């Protein structure tokens, strides 16, 4: 009962945010600069939340998320530009092919742990990039022209679906299995959880949404080039998750919003932006290694207040 109430509240909030922004865009209060920034923000949130499922919930340290972004971007671009099918088909196909890529990458590498897993995912992402670099059909190093189809509506609907699916997954029994793997893989194996299955499943779901984000990304920038999907892009996504708090969905959403704003302001000064990013990363790791919110959610703070009141009443 309580859970469903929360769900409808979330939907209501989403509808309100959507209609306010849509109104502002259609009346021309927000020019194309602001609407582009908002779309970029939605894409970054999708990426952050999808990586949050892999790193924050399942505890598998992947630093090759840009590889799946690249798969989604190129597949959707092939579908809309070469096969001339509608954009929505492109988004779905991007997600599905990225999931397959996630399975191909995940099944062999997820047997590794910690540092080795990180390096292996980085390696796979680079291999994906080099494959696209060598295919003339998608333009090679020069890149591929893509029409601008991504609108605020597409971006926001994808964002809401991503958050709902990942929240429900996290709160389901499968999500709890993933959390137990994060806390102690050997112990959860001993409790009868199929750790390999859940690790690969989380990885594939994360890859699916990264692919969707890739489709939105490709149709927002007019051109896609392999150089956009190098490991600096993977690090960008990683920073959202780490800064927000490993294991906190709302934390990664907030970090994605904040850092998108920062990088939009510093667009003309890429070095300054990266210096700030790296300093933030180092300082957060040295002084607050669990990230800004830790494993808590923003809603936990509201609950904390209520429950404290509840305890006080109980004592009386």
């Amino acid at each position, binding site marked *: 009962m309580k859970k469903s109430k929360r769900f409808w509240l979330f939907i209501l909030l989403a509808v309100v945010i959507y209609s306010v922004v849509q109104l502002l865009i259609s009346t021309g209060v927000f020019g194309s600069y602001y609407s582009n920034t908002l779309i970029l923000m939605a894409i970054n949130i999708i990426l952050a939340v999808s990586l949050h499922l892999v790193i924050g919930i399942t505890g598998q*340290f992947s630093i090759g998320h840009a590889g799946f972004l690249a798969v989604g971007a190129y597949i959707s671009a092939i579908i809309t530009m070469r096969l001339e099918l509608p954009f929505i088909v492109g988004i779905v196909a991007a997600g599905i092919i990225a999931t397959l890529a996630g399975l191909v990458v995940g099944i062999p590498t997820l047997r590794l742990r910690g540092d*080795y897993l990180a390096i292996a995912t980085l*390696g796979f992402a680079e*291999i994906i990039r*080099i494959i696209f670099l060598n295919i003339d059909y998608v333009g090679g190093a020069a890149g591929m022209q893509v029409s601008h189809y991504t609108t605020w509506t597409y971006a926001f609907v994808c964002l809401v679906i991503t958050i709902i699916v990942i929240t429900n997954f996290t709160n389901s029994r499968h999500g709890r299995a993933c959390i137990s793997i994060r806390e102690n893989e050997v112990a959860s194996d001993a409790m009868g959880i199929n750790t390999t299955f859940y690790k690969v499943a989380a990885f594939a779901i994360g890859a699916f949404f990264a692919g969707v984000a890739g489709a939105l990304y490709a149709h927002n920038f007019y051109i896609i080039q392999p150089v956009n999907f190098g490991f600096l892009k993977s690090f960008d996504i990683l920073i959202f998750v780490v800064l927000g708090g490993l294991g906190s969905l709302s934390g990664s959403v907030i970090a994605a919003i904040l850092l998108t704003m920062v990088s939009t302001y510093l667009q003309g000064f890429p070095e300054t932006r990266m210096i700030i990013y*790296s300093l933030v*990363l*180092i300082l957060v*790791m040295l002084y607050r290694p669990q990230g800004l919110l830790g494993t808590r959610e923003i809603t936990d703070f509201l609950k904390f207040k209520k429950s404290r009141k509840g305890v006080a009443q109980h004592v009386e």
Partner: protein
Amino acid sequence: MEWIQQLVNGISLGSIYALIALGYTMVYGIIKLINFAHGDVFMVGSFVGFYSIVGLGLDFFTALVLAMIFCAIFGVLIERIAYKRLRNATRIAALITAIGVSLLIENGFIFTWGPQPKAFPDIIANGSFEILGAKISIKSILILSISITLMVILQFIVHKTKIGKAMRAVSHDNEAARLMGINVDNTISATFAIGSALAGAAGVIFGLYYTKIDPLMGIIPGIKAFVAAVLGGIGIIPGAMVGGLVLGVIETFVNASGFSLWRDAAAFVILILILIFRPNGIFGKNTREKV
């Protein structure tokens, strides 16, 4: 005799990878950290070499020694400022910090000195001679002999000196070494100093061999040297040397057989194959995991 020439090129490239890989493997062996910033120490070494030849007018060997000293100090500074507090942190926190340090060095460098590539001066005679019909340049012989000399010195330090003994003890068991009265902090700093000095030397000879250096040049050789370290068995010093040479030769042959765009992919394919089939590397021993 085309392939002998390619083999010599491969060994020259491989010895640069090996020098970088040694630093990775030593640091990983002692504090279990993938020091992502190691590739950037290599870059800094290259630029120190460049400025001491062009700016100070030094000869090649003095520049090499200067770059090694500068990088040793730089490596120790990185360790003291960023990594020392993380000794008891989780592995992921340490890894993220290392990524942050790497990005900071690259972009701080670009911010201060600009992103333009520099042409490394050609101060070694460009001669070559023929053996069995293969043309072998003086430069590759020079690179090979510098690398071998440095590796011999490293083996001497690790196996015959007191600090080397301390390094081996700390990498074997940090706590026990501390109990035996070894200054663990200083030993770790010494490891960083030696590893970074080797990376600095690699940077200077890389500049000599490829003649173009830029602030982001450390990223790809850094990752490839890590692949070399994993290939040989991370934490094992002879493994890093062999891994570097093998990787260099494979890459050169991939390049020579007409797949030059796939050259970078070769290293990553090797990495993934080795991680899947033999994660302890060529020289590694199997270790059982205990709960």
